[in-house]
């Protein structure tokens, strides 16, 4: 990073920064060394350079496995080259006094706006040049953000997430430094390794006088503070089902007036059907984070079991349902365990109803017969409810190309679903009935389709 001024005598920059223009100074950091030197120092123009030499091996070794962002644990790391939060904190300390706006030698200068030019050759910038401009321009910076290509040898790869950022403007140096201190990590938007207790205070202090009025205040605080909850977030982000809520964020069809989310409609349809069937024990195969379980608990279903293939998802479900704080009578009604619908499992047996809500489409078609045997052949509940997307409805989603979810292995038309359900019912001795879930379009049907299987001889 370089900071230049053309305010004569430009070498007064040394006073402002409290670093002498004719010296080369070193500041040891936990993971490397920060160097301050002046590539040019004339009365007309003076440039201070802060060079942070990060040793990735030391960085990796000092972090260990508890690193919030695991990529920091990698030796192949952009931190040695990019203007990240590491640079921002190094700068904050090396230029601590300057940042506070104190300058005993040139108090007047410290208080006044001077022509400044700041260059960051490789700034990681999530949001691209546009966001860099959006964040710096409101404070009066003239912003140039040039995208850096990923690899000139592979032009087809496009641009990297880095830009070369040049800021020009007439500002107080202390303000300039505070802008950088806050906005570098915000633009980087990577998890900072450094989690201090007083992060909120720091943000407020550094943002004094400019942050509150910033049009992107929300984005800045959210991104900046994200880092504090990074540990929990990073953990849970990894745990949640891939794109769990992806489908729900799809644009609803233009003509759809009612904006009840599809997952709510689906859950309600399942709950209603189970109530109609008077199911007193329900096993939710693929329970995810337990929304259906909550609803069934509220309905007073005496026995509810949630099964998921992901142990992490079950952990989230247990937290959401507050299993550890549940009264013992309620607690006895709920059971959660890890299982897979392609492995027979004695624990699946003995329920009135099994629910496969948005599960079958996550199975590769050749695995469906295994699932059918596990559920219809071995567990054999009286009722089986299966919901799955109706592919015919997909054109109604404005921005949808392909399938509704990256992990969907297929999406069935109504005819395909009926054919599958019919053949399963025949093979395993069930009767099947189909119901729409959500707005039932006369041309393409409902967004979700549901099959209700009833074991023969159980009526």
């Amino acid at each position, binding site marked *: 990073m370089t900071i230049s001024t053309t305010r004569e005598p430009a070498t007064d920059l040394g006073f402002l920064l409290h670093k002498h223009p004719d010296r080369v100074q070193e500041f040891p950091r936990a993971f490397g060394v920060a160097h301050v*030197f002046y590539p040019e120092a004339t009365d007309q123009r003076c440039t201070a350079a802060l060079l942070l030499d990060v040793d990735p091996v030391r960085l990796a070794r000092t972090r260990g496995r508890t690193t919030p962002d695991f990529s920091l644990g990698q030796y192949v790391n952009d931190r040695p080259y990019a203007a990240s939060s590491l640079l921002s904190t190094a700068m904050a300390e090396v230029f601590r006094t300057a940042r506070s706006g104190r300058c005993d030698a040139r108090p007047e200068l410290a208080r006044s706006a001077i022509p400044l030019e700041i260059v960051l050759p490789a700034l990681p910038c999530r949001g691209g040049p546009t966001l860099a401009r959006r964040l710096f321009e409101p404070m009066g910076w003239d912003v140039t953000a040039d995208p850096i290509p990923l*690899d000139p040898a592979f032009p087809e790869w496009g641009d990297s997430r880095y830009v070369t950022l040049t800021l020009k403007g007439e500002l107080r140096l202390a303000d300039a430094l505070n802008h950088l201190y806050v906005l570098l990590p915000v633009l980087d938007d990577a998890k900072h390794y450094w989690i201090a207790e007083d992060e909120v205070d720091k943000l407020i202090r550094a943002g004094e006088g400019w942050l509150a009025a910033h049009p992107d205040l929300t984005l800045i605080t959210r991104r900046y503070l994200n880092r504090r909850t990074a540990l929990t977030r990073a953990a849970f982000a990894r745990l949640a089902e891939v794109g769990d809520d992806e489908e729900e964020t799809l644009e609803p069809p233009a003509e759809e007036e009612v904006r009840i989310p599809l997952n709510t409609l689906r859950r309600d349809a399942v709950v209603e059907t189970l109530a109609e069937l008077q199911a007193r024990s329900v096993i939710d195969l693929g329970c995810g984070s337990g929304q259906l379980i909550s609803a069934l608990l509220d309905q007073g279903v005496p026995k509810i079991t949630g099964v998921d293939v992901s142990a992490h998802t079950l952990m989230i479900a247990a937290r959401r349902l507050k299993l550890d704080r549940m009264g013992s009578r309620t607690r006895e009604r709920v059971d959660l365990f890890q299982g897979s619908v392609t492995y027979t499992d004695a624990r699946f047996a003995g329920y009135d109803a099994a629910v496969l809500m948005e599960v079958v489409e996550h199975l590769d078609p050749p695995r469906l017969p295994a699932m059918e045997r596990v559920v219809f052949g071995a567990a054999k509940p009286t009722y089986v409810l299966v919901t799955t997307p109706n592919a015919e409805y997909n054109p109604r989603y404005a921005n949808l190309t392909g399938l509704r979810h990256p992990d969907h292995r297929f999406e069935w038309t109504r005819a395909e679903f009926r054919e599958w359900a019919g053949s399963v019912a025949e093979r395993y001795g069930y009767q099947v009935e189909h119901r729409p879930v959500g707005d039932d379009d006369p041309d393409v049907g409902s967004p979700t389709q549901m099959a209700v299987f009833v074991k023969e001889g159980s009526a």
Partner: protein
Amino acid sequence: MTEIRVPALSLVVLVGVSGSGKSTFARKHFKPTQIVSSDHCRGLVSDDENDQAATPEAFDLLHHIVGVRLRRGLLTVVDATNVQWKAREALVALARSHDVLCDAIVLDVPEEVAVARNASRPDRDFGSHVIRRQRNDLRKSLSKISRDGFRRVHVLRGGEIDDAVIGYEKAWTDKRELTGPFDVIGDVHGCASELETLLATLGYQDGVHPGGRTAVFVGDLVDRGPDSPGVLRRVMGMVERGTALCVSGNHEQKLVRALNGRKVRVAHGLETSLEQFAREDDVFTGRAKAFMEGLISHYVLDGGRLVVAHAGLKEAYHGRASGRVRSFALYGDTTGETDEYGLPVRYPWAEEYRGRAMVVYGHTPTTHAEWVNNTICLDTGAVFGGRLTALRYPERELVSVPAERVWYEPARPLASRGREPDVLDIRDVTGDRYVETSTGTVKIREENATAALEIMSRFAVDPRWLVYLPPTMAPPETSKKDGYLEHPDEAFAEFAAAGVTRVVCEEKHMGSRAIVVLARTPADAQAKFGVEGTGTIFTRTGRPFFGDLQEEFVAGLREAFAPLLEDSPWVVLDGELLPWSAKAGELIRSQYASVGAAAGAALPVVVTALEAAAGRGLDVGPVLDRARRRESNAARFREAYARYCEPVSGVSGLRFAPFQILACAEGATAVTRPHDWHLDRLAAVTHPLVRATRHTYVDLEKEDRRQAAVDWWTALTDAGGEGMVVKPVAHPGGRVQPGIKVRGPEYLRIIYGPDYLESLDELRRRFLGRKRSLALREHSLGIEALSRLAAGEPFHRVHEAVFSVLALECEPVDPRL
């Protein structure tokens, strides 16, 4: 001396008043671990062995311990007074529920002896009235104890108690000492002529096999067919001469009852036998009746590895004795329902079978004998015009002869049993597991299995294709040579120290590890793997490589490996898919190219700034030098990954570089063959889709050969190669690594970062132990999976080993190794 004989696996219930010497008796005759004492249990639940208030809970515990021991097949002795009928009844019921026999040993001592003994023990503070009451209970019991349900009640009095010795009776079903080889023969049903033909085909001459083999009949020798007496005559003769064993079938049971004049419904072919027996004399009929009455339910043979029962037997019943064991063995596990032909609906116990013993049986006629989870039904409906089938054991070879005609019309058409759907059970994979391999037991921890279950269920290819996952490979001991983290010298030294004299160095392709499974035809895939299609290719964690391209690429591979498929209907190949960018494109762009881009943008600016400072006379010398070095390191880093990036469109541009034939239908597991065999065979495959694996053999005893290999490696890596893998040409067994990868210094920039050579000393402190141990364990599991596959073991057994590799891959190890 009084010998008390109890069954080798049984529940022995001691009966006697307090002070009758039960504990002393038990200690004298049984191991401490075999004795479960009520006093001890009372102490465990109350800290006071005499706290009578704790008795109900103490007995709950006692019954639990006894139950667990019996389930695990352990002889157990209950040391409690058991003078009341209720106490004994509960124990008899417990034994029965685990299908073990139950004997009582009563110690009948005079009241004064018991009172005197109790008086001498300070911890027994109850009065003599207690003993008196117990004596009364016992006296009342003794008159009818024989009706309690014990197999035998041994009553000992006076001197007999001290003189007694315990003898063990082996169960009738226990023939573990017989190791065969056997020829297990399916349901004959009076087809005497077909039986003679089959025996001749198997090599028997007049009921004797010159090779000393033993025939084992699965029962149902009689009924329906033309000559049941003839069949009995042959089999009885062989059993008497000791050249055959025979278990009872349901038809023998019913025939005996009919011959004994009992009222039975004459149907299902009984009428034919009765007709034929009417022509036999009384002597033969008497002999046949005695023979059929003496047949037992099942045999456990060959050290417990083979079980023969007429209708099969679930594992919990192997070697057990009870009415329901016999009923299962004779009639199968019926659900109580009948089908549309009025025949009982049978519970498919074999699909759930997970036992280690092979179970061979008959009873249910099918068109073909099919393996289901290490069980096989040999009833191929000879009497209905099908075939008479035998299984050679331990060869697992089926031999059959066709029926001469339809002797009897079946009540329902012979169904092809078909291949059972290969459904896996959760118990095959979850929990802490100990997986047996030929080189020892590998422990899989529950939390790793948990993670693997998710990956397997959500992302892996169809598990029926997933017959192998490649083990991880360790690098050599870290080199101390200047400028090197890894060098061939250490690999050679390690193998030489392990006694290996010849290694092969194989070029290490920089791509993505890929396992390829190919079948000659869809029918071959169905037969071997039970799955539709003709092949697949998957990653080292079992994921498919491509979406829609998978099929096209596999078709190309089948064409390429057609020569191998000519020799074997299916093959499993280990290799590398090239280029790296085909599978790792996203990773390369987000991780490697990004670092390169940041470095490429930042470092020239740094160098310029420092040069300017130097121009001003500032002392930035060392910093400038380092910045220049880093600039060049970053450029080399970019070159390092760029080498492995090639544009790929569709399948064109993709290459598969095989280096090992993991398995093929040539009997033994191919993977255990020496590497020159693999490389020679693979060298014969020339196809644009296939890239050869360059290699060189090294005689480790010759220093110049070693040096030549080092030069070969240097040339390879200088030209941009990743490095090489050093493998013993023939693996010596034991804890020797199957291969060691030696990566080139430029390639390692991708792993350790552009500037890694600047901090070599730091990086040399890397810990290899876990990686090396993991590599060995995964290697054993991989070989185990392939040997199970080659031996035709059930699908879930192969899956267990493959799943375990995936579970071990979930263990955290330094990803740079």
